[in-house]
């Protein structure tokens, strides 16, 4: 699997303060890569380094298989579209004029402007000055600029910022479909973990400048499996049997008939259920908790927890 973006021991420090700490990032081709991390984790800085906006203290970046340096940077970045922090746009020019400038810099036919305006639903307001735009409209213009020329790589920092719910949903389906529709790879950072969960296929979680997890969404979920909940008819007997098996259990606070168990392997679980049933405990329900991305994320970053 070819990596579109690869970083090797990327470091960045400002006046002794380490912001990016030996980052080894790998974004496979054709995926939607979610870049997560709490505020101040170093996400924006890392993304800026990828685009050559910030010079790394040490380490290297490879884009499309080529090590990025001052000479080839622009040529490589021409195949990308980006939106970092706040959207850019000359306030005294209309959206269309702004896009013309970007198209000229990217060496793209002006015909593509209508296409991207249509995608972000700005066609009706294309001839108004950007200074008059709402925040959401400026955001959409920023996305349109990134989409110009059908880039092979999209780097988006909080792309749904300022959008209304319909806009967020549109953005989500657009991004999720990009690999299939245009063959593009997308690197996206966002705080909306619920949205991310539905869009991304790969994840990288950053904390204090260090990557604490990188892999697919399934891998993350597998590693952070939540516990089990068994609903039984005879709670007391159930607890006895489980304790004799050496499994610590307790009832849920608001559901006195549900026993909570830690995560155990499938074989042991099957044997346990048979034991409980044979002893008349009466197993009537069994659910396995899946931690949401948000819960995993919080437990990882707040407690400095391991990916268990």
């Amino acid at each position, binding site marked *: 699997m070819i990596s579109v973006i690869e970083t090797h021991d990327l470091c960045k420090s400002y006046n002794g303060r380490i912001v990016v700490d030996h980052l080894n990032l790998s974004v496979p081709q054709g995926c939607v890569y979610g870049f997560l991390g709490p505020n101040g984790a170093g996400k924006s800085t890392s993304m800026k380094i990828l685009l050559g906006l910030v010079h790394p203290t040490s380490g290297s970046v490879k884009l499309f298989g080529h090590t990025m340096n001052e000479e080839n940077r*622009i040529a490589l970045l021409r195949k990308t579209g980006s939106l970092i922090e706040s959207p850019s746009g000359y306030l005294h020019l209309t959206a269309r004029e702004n896009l013309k400038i970007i198209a000229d810099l990217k060496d793209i036919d002006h015909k593509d402007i209508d296409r991207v305006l249509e995608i972000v639903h700005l066609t009706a307001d294309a001839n108004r000055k950007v200074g008059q735009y709402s925040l959401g409209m400026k955001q959409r213009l920023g996305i349109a600029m990134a989409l110009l020329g059908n880039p092979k790589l999209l780097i988006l920092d909080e792309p749904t910022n300022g959008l209304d719910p319909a806009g967020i949903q549109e953005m989500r389906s657009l991004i999720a479909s990009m690999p299939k529709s245009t063959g593009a790879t997308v690197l996206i950072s966002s705080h909306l973990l619920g949205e991310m969960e539905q869009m991304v296929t790969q994840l990288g979680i950053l904390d204090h400048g260090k990557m604490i997890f990188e892999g697919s969404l399934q891998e993350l979920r597998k590693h952070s499996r939540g516990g089990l909940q068994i609903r039984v008819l005879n709670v007391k007997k159930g607890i006895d049997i489980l304790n004799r098996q050496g499994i610590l259990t307790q009832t849920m606070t608001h559901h006195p008939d549900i026993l909570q168990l830690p995560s155990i392997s499938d074989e042991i679980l099957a044997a346990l259920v048979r034991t409980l049933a044979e002893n008349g405990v009466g197993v009537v329900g069994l659910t396995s908790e899946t931690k949401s991305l948000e819960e995993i994320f919080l437990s990882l970053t707040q407690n400095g927890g391991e990916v268990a």
Partner: protein
Amino acid sequence: MAGAFRVEVQKAHRRHDLLFCLVVPLIVMLWTGGLLSPGPDELANAYSALFYSIPIANVLILPIVMAVLASRLWDMEVKGSTWKLLYTLQSRRSLFLGKALFGIMEVLLVTFLEMGGIFLTGKIYGYTEDFPISQFFYLTGCTLAVELMLFFGAFLLMLLTGNPLLALCAGIIASLTGLFSAFMPKVVSYFVPWGYFVPLGTYEVANWDQAAHTVTYGTRPYNWGLLIFTVLLVMSLFYTAWRRVQKQEV
């Protein structure tokens, strides 16, 4: 690089900067020669009067004008937060050159309009003095050199602070000190580069007859040494600004 320049032209759309470049020479010309129709004896040395007073008007107005032009060139990027996008599409060098070229174009426009204005004023009011061709070209060269120096000075200040406030306050102070240095002994004026319009100028008041209110003008030799020094200043300011852009992080 031509592409970068074309993009700057597009960015200048709706900005009235070019209108500004037209108005400035107009103001200078109106002030120095346009409003007062000279009497018959004044017509005989009207060009001299003009060539004497234009550098003084320049020293007052142009530092602020150059600060305005330079600050506006960069201010649009600051207001639109466009750095992050631009630097992924064009190298810092390309952006710098595009803007520098556009600025130079504006400076050329102002200079040529001003010089053209001299010619025009003479024709309109029918100056009887012979048109001093070589002085004219010398004045054009000097004005251009000092203007470029002022422009790149303001350009550099904008790059260093990103805030037009500093460039403009510096322009105001430069105007004031430049004007003053013009009336001080020549030695002092050499230490005030932004006032070089005047020491570079070749016309001076030879005799001021207070009773008859007439002024006779004389000429000084061309100040080639100072002109060359000015050009060197232009180049070093340009280079410093270039280096600054290269290092810039977003």
